[in-house]
């Protein structure tokens, strides 16, 4: 937790801009590229990582840095970042936390049709209805959610970026064609699309990923296209064109990197949605082929018959889904605000 906290000076009070800026200028003078590349990828923990002062430039040149600086002072963003980091850490360290094999029922579990053993020393959260350690299931469920969530978002992001770039960079009939295809995709409700893809491609984890990813393609494509159209009229694009750079270069090294801001925000938000959709699909029985696979949605299904006697069995995975989705949503929303030029002070 402490590693994620903002730098001491900027926690509760609004850190004075002058101080920050001065520190940033000193950084620049020393020639250190402060936090270079921090905005690109990397674990969500980075958002809240304390760092040297950034060069404060409100004239739009250091969008990413300015955004990071604002994020560090935004309690909502920090909460979101903490939740997301926690989720990722749990998912990665699942075998260390779990203590048992996922999906393997224990002998002599003491499960009766009417009751499930509660918390004990060996099983801190008790057992689930099939006699598996509940904590183990939850922790591996996090892993499953993360994998499917990330992979499906990457699928959506990749194809969305390709389509959006085509439409935004070329315009004309390419734009029209691509955007009509995207409109068609968008007109299908995402869950319905996911269900039909899962139904066609068969019941397994891969088809869930494809299904959720496909539903995200139009979102990313539209967003990137719009963002690119806005950047197309900018001075540096005109300057790049005036230098005779190939259209490909102008698009890939000038247009695209500057248009990614909103897409990054959306990707964060979509990750949260994807985790809910993973749960929804597995709840509907369209999850992984192996019924023993730890999935939060499937855990909900199993808990359903015992809702009256052991509500905890449903509450635990439900809480996991809700909190994880909340973390991504909070982070995404504050990212959106931090990157929004209109919201800048």
């Amino acid at each position: 937790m402490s590693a994620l906290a903002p730098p001491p000076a900027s926690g509760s009070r609004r850190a004075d801009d002058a101080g920050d800026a001065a520190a940033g200028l000193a950084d620049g003078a020393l020639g250190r590229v402060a936090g270079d590349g921090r905005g690109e990828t990397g674990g969500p923990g980075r958002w809240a990582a304390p760092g040297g002062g950034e060069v404060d430039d409100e004239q739009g040149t250091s969008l990413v840095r300015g955004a990071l600086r604002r994020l560090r002072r935004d309690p909502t963003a920090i909460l979101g970042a903490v939740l997301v980091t926690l989720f990722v850490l749990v998912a990665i360290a699942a075998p260390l936390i779990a203590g048992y094999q996922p999906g393997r029922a224990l002998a002599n579990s003491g499960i009766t049709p009417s009751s499930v053993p509660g918390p004990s020393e060996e099983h801190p959260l008790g057992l689930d209805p099939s006699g598996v350690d509940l904590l183990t299931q939850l922790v591996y469920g996090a892993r499953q959610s993360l994998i499917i969530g990330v992979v499906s978002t990457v699928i959506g992001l990749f194809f969305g970026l390709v389509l959006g770039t085509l439409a935004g960079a070329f315009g004309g009939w390419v734009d029209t064609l691509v955007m009509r295809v995207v409109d068609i995709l968008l007109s299908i409700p995402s869950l319905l699309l996911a269900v039909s893809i899962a139904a066609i491609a068969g019941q397994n984890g891969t088809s869930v990923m494809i299904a959720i990813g496909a539903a995200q393609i139009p979102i990313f494509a539209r967003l990137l296209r719009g963002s690119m159209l806005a950047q197309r009229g900018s001075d540096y694009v005109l300057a790049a064109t005036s230098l005779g750079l190939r259209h490909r270069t102008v698009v890939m090294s000038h247009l695209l990197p500057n248009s990614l801001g909103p897409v990054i925000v959306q990707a964060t938000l979509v990750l949260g949605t994807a985790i809910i959709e993973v749960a929804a699909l597995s709840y509907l029985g369209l999850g992984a082929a192996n019924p023993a696979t730890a999935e939060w949605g499937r855990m909900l299904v199993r808990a359903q018959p015992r809702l009256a006697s052991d509500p905890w069995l449903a509450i635990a995975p439900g809480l996991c889904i809700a909190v994880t989705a909340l973390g991504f949503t909070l982070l995404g929303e504050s990212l959106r605000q931090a990157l929004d030029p209109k919201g800048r002070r």
Partner: protein
Amino acid sequence: MNRPGAAATGATEPLLSVRDLEVVFSARGRADVRAVDGVSFDVRAGQVMALVGESGSGKSVTSLAVTGLLPARGVRVGGQALLRGRDLLTMGRRELDGLRGSEVAMVFQDPMTSLNPVIPVGLQITEVLRRHTDLSRAAAKERAVELLGRVGIPDPRRRVGEYPHQLSGGMRQRVMIAVALACDPALLIADEPTTALDVTIQAQVIELLASLVREQNTAMLLITHDLGVVAGVCDEVTVMYSGRVVERAERRELFARPRHRYTSGLLASVPRLDGDRGARLVPIPGTPRDVVPWSTACAFAPRCPVADDACASGDLALVADGPAHVHRCVHPAGDPTATATSATSTSTTPPTTTTGATS
């Protein structure tokens, strides 16, 4: 660096020759706007041609038209822009791209927005080099360092890896100049290169541009609204008003003997170091929107202190007045001081010509 033939052919052979350039913006449901209307001028190697005019006079549109940077939709470009005899306006996109950046380069007005914020400045230089030359990655980087040094950026080896936001405005404009000069262009077009800069930095940047032009025998088209900028560096001045050339002369001639009333008005409105400090500056009355179309009268007439019925004839021609001095005025000004007094005395009675006819 040494452009063979440039010196040999002498100053008579223009590098860029713009003839009857015409740019018309047309939008559905609106009257066409003739932003540039029959503009002609020459730019010679090793010389600076200044294109002066206020906002909306068509000077920037002229530069964009010459470099083919105007959007294709809703714009009609006519006339010729001959670079060493090849018409930039009619050549294909591929051919033009081969020339842009290598033969013709531009320095834009605002260094804050004209550099890509997410790419280190060095990369923005090497990008151009790699596009137009056969330099290897390493050689291009070396050249970028050298270029940054040449435009007066201290510690170029370090700066080459920095992002635009880590540099000051003046530094960024120097980077823009380095990018433009990367491939030793024969023609440099600088569109208000100092407008966004501090006054002290302005002088430095102008000085830099001028010295680079002389060193490399580059032809430069300097677009500006600031006569102070022009006074120091250019060889020839073309004054534009409402899309047409109203006066052109060699620099000294123009400052000493402005003929068109717009030029003389501009000069009277600029403070002079050698003038009387107590003297009041004389502004040109009205705004650039107060124009009439050239086809009906002198476009400057509504703001002109000496306009009369004689100015109301359509399509006034450029009149030669001495060698290499042309203007388009019915009542050319005498010497500048007389103009100043006449301007003050008559400005109280504004002319009654129609205003805003084109808007």
